[in-house]
């Protein structure tokens, strides 16, 4: 959906006429043809999903979550005056997963951290998205060893992969813009439907009283 803003031209008299018609509208004096025209001029018609996607796209709240080196570049994206992330409406960093809807996996994911990340992801409310920032969280990068999960997509659905070690701030912003495209075009679905991931609900061992 595209919103185009144009400057209203016209003389002082036109402006006065518009003011008057608005006044009449508020009083309830307009009817018939005049009312039709008035509404036509001021309405923007779209589908609800599109409007919702447009709103979501421009109000991403990332989770303030840093893992390793990429977190430094992520903070640079958010905090540095040079790359102002609020241009894309994503500068509101929330530290509680309940309030965030974008998880940026910035750094390497160790086997000790993976369950924690998974739990944070499950605490986030729908709709939620994940960006794997950097080579490590995308594929473990050069650390092909015993300590790391070889790519965060082993235990988490990932929407956008940003390459680099660490990626430049511009690269992360491009990733966020790609995610914005995805959000606008994606129908309203939860992540299990988006990834055909039914049946991935957490397995609870018999006799375990741990609640999900």
């Amino acid at each position, binding site marked *: 959906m595209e919103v185009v803003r144009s400057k209203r031209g016209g003389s002082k008299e036109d402006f006065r006429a518009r003011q008057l018609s608005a006044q009449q509208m508020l009083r309830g004096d307009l009817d018939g043809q005049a009312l039709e025209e008035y509404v036509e001029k001021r309405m923007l018609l779209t589908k609800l999903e599109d409007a919702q996607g447009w709103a979501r796209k421009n109000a991403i709240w990332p989770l303030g979550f840093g893992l390793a080196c990429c977190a430094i570049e992520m903070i640079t994206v958010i905090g540095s005056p040079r790359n102002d992330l609020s241009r894309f409406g994503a500068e509101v960093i929330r530290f509680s997963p309940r309030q965030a809807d974008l998880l940026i996996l910035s750094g390497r994911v160790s*086997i000790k951290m993976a369950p924690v990340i998974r739990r944070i992801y499950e605490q986030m409310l729908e709709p939620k998205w994940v960006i794997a920032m950097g080579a490590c969280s995308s594929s*473990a990068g050069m*650390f*092909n*060893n*015993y300590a*790391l999960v*070889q790519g965060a997509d082993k235990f988490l659905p990932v929407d956008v992969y940003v390459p680099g070690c660490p990626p430049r701030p511009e690269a992360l912003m491009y990733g966020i813009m790609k995610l914005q495209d995805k959000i606008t075009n994606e129908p309203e679905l939860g992540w299990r439907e988006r990834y055909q991931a039914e049946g991935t609900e957490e397995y609870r061992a018999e006799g375990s009283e741990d609640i999900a």
Partner: protein
Amino acid sequence: MPDATGLELAAQRVREAVGDTAVIGTDHAHGRARLDVDPPRVHEVLRYLRDDDEESYGHLSSLHGCDYLPEEPRLGVHYELLSMERRDRLAVRARVTVEDAVLPSVTDLFPTANFQEREVYDFFGVVFEGHPDPRRILMPEDYVGHPQRRDFPMGGEPVLFTFNERKLPRWYD
């Protein structure tokens, strides 16, 4: 670093104070002076070097392990001693076998050894007797094995190329 003569003198002083068999050997190479000590007496030697020696070393700057795989005894624990007053360093090494990887803890002498001994235990399986909190530190608590021994596999996953695509397990996934 003490020169080669200074190292021998230090070794002699340790032998006289702690016992003849306390120092197994000395090594001086690339400007690094090292005493090889008898593993059970590491604690005594370090106590002597810290407190009583005329050229004492008051600080432990680092403690780390390493694995000399083909050689025996395989595991080695290095104590990098530092004297801030004389601006001097001395390394002490104790080598233990994999089967009997036990060393006395030096946390009572140097509290800094606490985390570092736990790390050596975690990665090499050297048990430090008398350590106040002998648990793993970096790997998960239930991890099996000591991953930085040289006979522990590197882990990870085989990289998929076009030439080995079909040979790797579960390639059809």
